[in-house]
């Protein structure tokens, strides 16, 4: 069950914003990754954070319009 803020799913909202910024070339994948990694549990080992964040991305070979 997602945690909602009012009617909004904040995680979906954040992901959609990051995707929109990356699609427009305003944010790189590495910058998005850093934002996400900084929000993870600080007790989580770096290597686990790295693998987890990588698993959140899907391969998309569509060309930018």
């Amino acid at each position, binding site marked *: 069950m997602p945690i909602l803020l009012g009617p909004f799913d904040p995680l979906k909202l954040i992901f959609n914003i990051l*995707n929109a910024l990356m699609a*427009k*070339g305003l*944010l790189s994948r590495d910058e998005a990754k850093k934002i996400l990694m900084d929000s993870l549990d600080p007790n989580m080992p770096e290597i686990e954070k790295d693998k*987890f964040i990588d698993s959140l*991305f*899907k391969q998309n070979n569509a060309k*930018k319009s």
Partner: protein
Amino acid sequence: MPKKVSPITSFQELDIQNIATKEPLNDIRVFLEFCENDIQSATKELEGIQIEKNRKHLQKLVYVNLINRFDYLIDKLLLWFSINNKSLRDNILGTIEKETISKKEVFEIFFAKERSYELITEKIKELTRSNVLRSRHSSKLLKILDTCLNIKDCIKPRVNNSNGKIFTKTTGNKNLPNSIIGYADWLYSRRNSLVHGDGIKYTPADFEYIKKTYNTTNLSITIRLQLTSITSAVTFYTDLLKIISDNIQDSIE
């Protein structure tokens, strides 16, 4: 205004679908990568040692490592399910149903505001650790398959004993357990013999438990670990984790 990053022809976007299950699916993926990389290369090296007695000690180490890693994964999945699956959560909270809580504690939890959810989930995980995670390996797996995923035929014959492959069903076996739960129990009992026993026979408690619980009246007392024991265990865990992965999305409540 932030500097515009050069547009790229192909880019990776964040996968919004099934965000809720990313964490357990990632844990499963990490384990499968461990099997594919570490275990596979270890067994390849062991194959190069032709004489069985020269490699049996290393075989034992690899086997124990594999079984321990899987047990650790089961624990992680149970902690996740204890928060995200109502059936398991109700099961765990049932253990404290009759306990009382003071108004002071209730107010403190609500006063913590955005941290209150984190406090409660941590309490549930503590209960899971002290109750569920201390139980037998096969009982933990049963909690995942039966309680959380509603896979009722996990106690029926489904596993090919010679290679660990899981089928929809198969015939029963009096020599070795071949239900999903029974096979997992058998794998773990061999690990117990290596870690806590003499590495040759099952521990007495495990031997009696397996014979009685899975009706394997012809179970041999010796464990007979070979190189194929490792590859069969990997096949079994891979098939089992596919079943869990395929059903995990529907288990969230």
